[in-house]
Every structure is written in C-alpha cells, then in structure tokens.
C-alpha cells in the first residue's frame, strides 16, 4: 500500500514546505492530545455509566459521552495512543529490517541481492491487508499481530529505497576509499550511506504511519481488528455509526481525529519531498 502512495508522491515536485509545517503541527497536536488528556482528565475509557448515555460535555468528559456512557475524550485519547504506538513501532521495526536487508543486498550483490529482491517483490504482491489479516489469525494478541503484520508490509519500501541508494553509492570513490582504508561496514554505513538515506526516511515514515493507522482502522471497521471494548478508531466509528442521527457529534469525534492524523502525516510526507 505504501509502495503505491510513495511512488505516486515520489514524483511530486514543487515548493510547499509550508504544508510540511502544517503537517508537523497537526501530528504534534494530536500526539500531545493523546498523551496529555488522559493525565488531565483521568477517566477510564471502559468505564460505563448508564446515566450518561449520549450526555453532553461536562468537566469529567469534555467531549461528552458515547452510547454506553463512556467518556468520548478518554476513548479517543486511548484509541489514538493505541493506533499511534502500533504504527510507530511498525515503522521503526520495518525501517530497521528494511534498511539492514537493503544494505546487505546491495553490498553483497549476486544471488543474495537477487533472492532478497525476489522475496521483497513477492511480499509486495501480497496485499497488505491480507498479510495483516493472516498474521492476526496466527498471533493471538491483536496489537502484536498488527505490529508483525504491518512490519511485514512496510519493510519492503525501506528495502527498495536503501538498496537503490546503496547500489548507487557503493562504487563511488569515497566509499571505495573508505573500504580500502580498512573501515568496517558500520563506519561506511554511518559515514556514507545514512546521510543519503536520511532525508527519504521522514517521507517513508510518515507514509508508513498513515498506512498503518488506516489499516488498523479499516480492520476494526470490518470487525476483524481490535475487539470491543478496546477503544480503537475504526471500532469507535462502527459502534457509533448507528447513532449518526441521534448523536452526530459522537460519530464525528473519531472521524475527525482520523482525518486530521492522516492529513497531518500526508502533509509531512508531501512537504518533506521538496
């Protein structure tokens, strides 16, 4: 999934660094919200109160209450924490795996390179949601399953970019000089490869996060992701959807939050290209 998004955006040019700032601000604000509100308004996101069904905002729940009288703000904050941390973990692990295999493939060349590329292409052929779905059927713990599944999806992107970049650099005079001087692979990576890779990583990470958050929500929405009563963005939407006429604001809460997270990440990624 991110392969598609990326290859599309990779070709975007233009000068809109200001959008990047907007993106950072949005994502930052949301992270701050997810981290701080549970501290400022310590409500249990699973705590039901049948007297408060769809009650309006009050001091304990500034966004009001849902269909079971649970604080919408607490649920939203915890849902964002969950999505953001799974997405963050997946992006981190997939970048480590992808960069490592990418450097290895380009460095070694030959059959290692061909085999790694073949495996990466084969993973690419498996739709990401399929991978995540199948892993979640294997791994019993849902967040863990998402993490493993999304890592399997996202590493390819890092692998392909790293491999391409390293292949370009490895025969450059600077790298050859370093190798002749007897510097180890770690030094060469830090000195030569990483500076070339680093600028692309922000874009990839932002797209990876967006992909991950979208997948978690989508699977929650088709009821094969997180299980109630865990607060999760897709699940919150599906739970509140039947009340769209009775309580539109309750439904809009997770919808707007998801939109802004994804928008922010898209802007960061888009802006970082320029």
């Amino acid at each position, binding site marked *: 999934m991110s392969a598609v998004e990326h290859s599309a955006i990779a070709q975007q040019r233009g000068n809109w660094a200001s959008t990047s700032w907007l993106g950072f601000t949005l994502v930052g604000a949301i992270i701050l919200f997810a981290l701080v509100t549970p501290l400022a308004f310590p409500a249990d996101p699973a705590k*039901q109160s049948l007297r408060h069904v769809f009650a309006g905002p009050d001091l304990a729940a500034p966004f009001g209450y849902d269909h*079971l009288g649970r604080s919408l703000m607490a649920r939203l904050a915890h849902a964002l924490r969950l999505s953001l941390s799974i997405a963050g973990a997946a992006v981190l692990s997939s970048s480590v795996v992808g960069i490592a295999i990418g450097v290895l493939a380009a460095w070694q060349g030959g059959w290692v390179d061909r085999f790694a590329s073949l495996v990466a292409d084969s993973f690419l052929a498996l739709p990401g949601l399929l991978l995540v779905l199948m892993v979640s059927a294997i791994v019993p713990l849902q967040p863990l399953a998402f993490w493993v599944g999304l890592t399997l999806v996202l590493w390819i992107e890092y692998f392909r970019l790293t491999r391409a970049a390293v292949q370009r650099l490895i025969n450059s005079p600077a790298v050859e000089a370093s190798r002749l001087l007897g510097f180890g692979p770690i030094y060469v990576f830090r000195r030569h490869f990483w500076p070339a890779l680093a600028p692309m990583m922000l874009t990839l990470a932002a797209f990876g996060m967006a992909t991950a958050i979208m997948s978690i929500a989508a699977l929650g929405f088709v*009821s094969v992701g997180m299980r*109630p009563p865990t607060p999760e963005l897709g699940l919150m939407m599906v739970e509140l959807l*039947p*009340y769209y006429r*009775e309580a539109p604001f309750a439904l809009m809460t997770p919808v707007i939050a998801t939109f802004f997270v994804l928008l922010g990440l898209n802007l960061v990624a888009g802006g970082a290209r320029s």
Partner: protein
Amino acid sequence: MLFRLLASSAVAVLLGTSAFAQERVLDVVSPFELKGPEPGVSGYIYLQMDVIETLVNSDLEGNLVPGLATEWTTSGDGLEWRFLLRDGVTFHDGTPLDAAAAAHALSVAQGKPGLLATAPITRIEGQGNEVVFHLAEPFEPLAAFLTEYRNMIYAPAAYAADGAITEVIGTGAYKITKIEAPLRMEVERFEGYWGEPAHIANATYQSVGRAETRALMAESGEAEYVVNLDPASVARLAELDGLDVYSVSIPRAMLIKANTAHPVLSDLDVRRALSLALDRDGLASAVLRYRAGADQILPPLLSDWHSEHVQPLRYDPDEAISLLAEAGWVPGDDGILVREGQRLSLTLTSYPDRPEMPLSAAVIQQMFAEIGVELTIDLTNSSEIPVRHHDGTLELALFARNFALTPSPLGTFLTDYAPNGDWGAMGWDNPEFVDLIRDLARGRGGQSERDRAIEILQTELPVLPVAWYQQTAVISHAITGAVLDPFERTIGLKYIRWAE
C-alpha cells in the same frame, strides 16, 4: 473533460433508474449467509423463504399445526408415531411427495448432527401414505422436533448416494431460480404448489452481514423486509414514515454458564452472590436497548415453561456481599475478595460473533467488580465453550442460547441440563431435575412438573440467566401480510401482497 465526466455519471444514473423499472421484486434482507444446500447449514433460510417445508408447522404462538402431514397419531404404548401425508404435493422437480421420500429425508436428517439424532428413534419408514416412526421409548416432543429446519423434506433427487444434499429441491410455494452463494438467492412462485399460490411472483433473499448496512437498506426503501437490526438503528428507523419496526420476544436467552464442579463455583452461595450482582434490566437496556432482564431462564412467550410460581431473580449487591462474607470471603487490599490466601478471580469465556457479547461481558465485569469479584474476559471462538466444557477448564461462559429450535424447549433441556450439556449445565448433577425432564419427554407429567423443573434451575443456578432476546424486523408499507415469527420459521412470504 469535465463534460465527459458529467456525461458518464449521467449515463450511470440513467442505467440505475432503468434497472428500477423492471417488474417489482420483493427483497428480503437478513444477516445469514447461504453457506450450502444442507439444512443443518442454511436450512432456516430455505424454510423462511417458503422453499422447503416440514411435516409439522408451528403457528406464531408455538402451537403445532399441520404442514406436509395433515394429522398424526401415537400408538397406545407411545412407541409408534404415524404422520399422514397431505395429498397432491409435488416437489419443484415435478416428482410427487410420497411416504418413501419423506421417510428417506427424515432418516438422513436423523443420521446428521441435530436434535432428531438425540431422539430415541429406532427406525423411520414409509407405509402407504404415512411416515411411521418406531421408538425405543415414548417420546412426547417428537412432533415438535419435526418442525425444526434440520428436518425438512427435500426431494429424493436432492440427495447424493451418501446422504449429502447437492441441490435445494422442496415442496414450498417458491422455488429457487438462482443461487449466488453466499449472499444472494432468487426465488419464483411455484405454480404447482399444493396450497394457495403465492401472491408475489418473484422475490430475492439477500444476506447483508453488517447491521448498519441492513438498516440503511431499510431506510432507503431498497428492501421490503429487513430482519435483525441493531438496537440503535431500531430507534432511528422507528421515527421514519413508510415503514414499520416490529419487535417480538424470542425464545433465546443470554446466559452465564457456571462450572459447578469448580472449587469456588461449586459453592451455591457464590453462584447466588454472582446472580445478585447482576443488574439485569440495566444491562439489557444499555446493551440490548430493551428492558428484558431475565428474572428466570425462559421468557413469558414460552408460557408452559415460564413459571409464575418461582421467586424472580433479584439485583441486590449488598446481599451478594454479605452472602460472600458469610462464606468466608473478605476484601483484600485492592478490594477483591480473598479467602485463605485465594483471590476470588474468575475467567469468563465468550465470543465476539454476536456484537452484544463483548459489551455485555464488559458490563458484567464491572457489576462483579462492585461486589469484589475479579473477572477476566476471554473473547475467543465460540467453539471454545464446548471444548472447555469437555476438558473441564471452563469457569464461566457467557453466550446466547436458542431454547426453541422446536416450539417446545424440552429438547433443549434434555440435551443441556439432563444432566449436563455443551451449552447448558456443567459438572451439575440433579437427579430430580433429570427425572422430571425425562418423564416429561416420555409424556408423563404436566404444568406442575414443568414449574418444579424451572424452580430447581432457579434455586440451583447451574446457569445464571441474564437477558431475554427480542427479534426485530423492518417491514415496508409497500407490502402487507408479512409476519415476524418468534420461532423464526416464517416471514409469511407466500401470504405477502403488494400494498394498493
């Protein structure tokens, strides 16, 4: 370019409206998928769509009425039942229904998992125009068993040599013209039907898994009969013109099953305390959105089995706490009760297939916490409940149980509580209850015995009743004559007409 875009969407809209202009087709929408031709798998759909029929039917009150059999008699010793077949019935493939065909269909059904397999039947045969059951012992609910969808009469041509069903051929007022498994089926009026032919020529059955989507289909007027709506949508749809929302109480109950052989749960006082901790009406109105807390196991709908004489189950957390205190359980540091160094901590197994289960489990967890009982929820595949029942590791399980696959819950009591069952009692052995139920099955005993049986369940609490379910349907004003059957056997399809 924009013009072309607009033009193409205009064409699309025209195509869409022209599709509406075809002959009117009745659309029935329900969550259940067409998984295969076997009655055990999707039979209730063929039954509701009037495609296949049973020997005995039941009316909306649960009384037995003639189906493909016009009458039935029992021999004096109760060991032989004779069902007289209706004359002039033909299957959709043109072959006539005779006693041999019906006996074959029922013999095959008896060999497959289902209620009929639990009846003491030694042989089923066709004699003249009668289907004859030979029994090992008297069995009073036999006629009621034959109303079940797993005991429908398929045509002989529907069966493969090994008894597997390959095609859906019945005797009903509609015949199937097209099956697009798993989501869609088209039926057409069967002109050779034995009764009054159906009024509407064509109908479709559509399986729509998501409750929100079903509600939207009803709201848009796209489907005339939509069954099984989520509580929130019911509230919304009830406000709209052009359709009616119906609800009926159905013989399905939400229960908590307790392992009565478990060291803690074997103590009746603990089970009573857990029962007292349940705010049943609160849970029902919050999660199911109707006040149908179960103060005994079966709802008033099943009038023979809903006892007026038992003490209703109550909500009284204070009494629960004092009961547990008398049994030696005292609050620990974190508020959870402790006795001899052991925490009162239990695991509740449930499954997410029914959307209300995880929520109900969460509500129950909080209610138990109020009296100092720690509950861990294990949401897993529903089949883990029978599995853990058999290996003895189950502690508590929350599930929904249909008590009236037949109009009489007797069959369910026999399999679940006499003495134990996968979806009933566990580690429970009450000889009096078993004798009462077995005698009732043999045709001995009446209302006072049924009341006594319910009273035993009420005081012994092998399961804790939580709530009684309701079924909901949205029926469009475009049709008349549709019904909502508490026993979920019919929607009245063959009687439905287009409204004038």
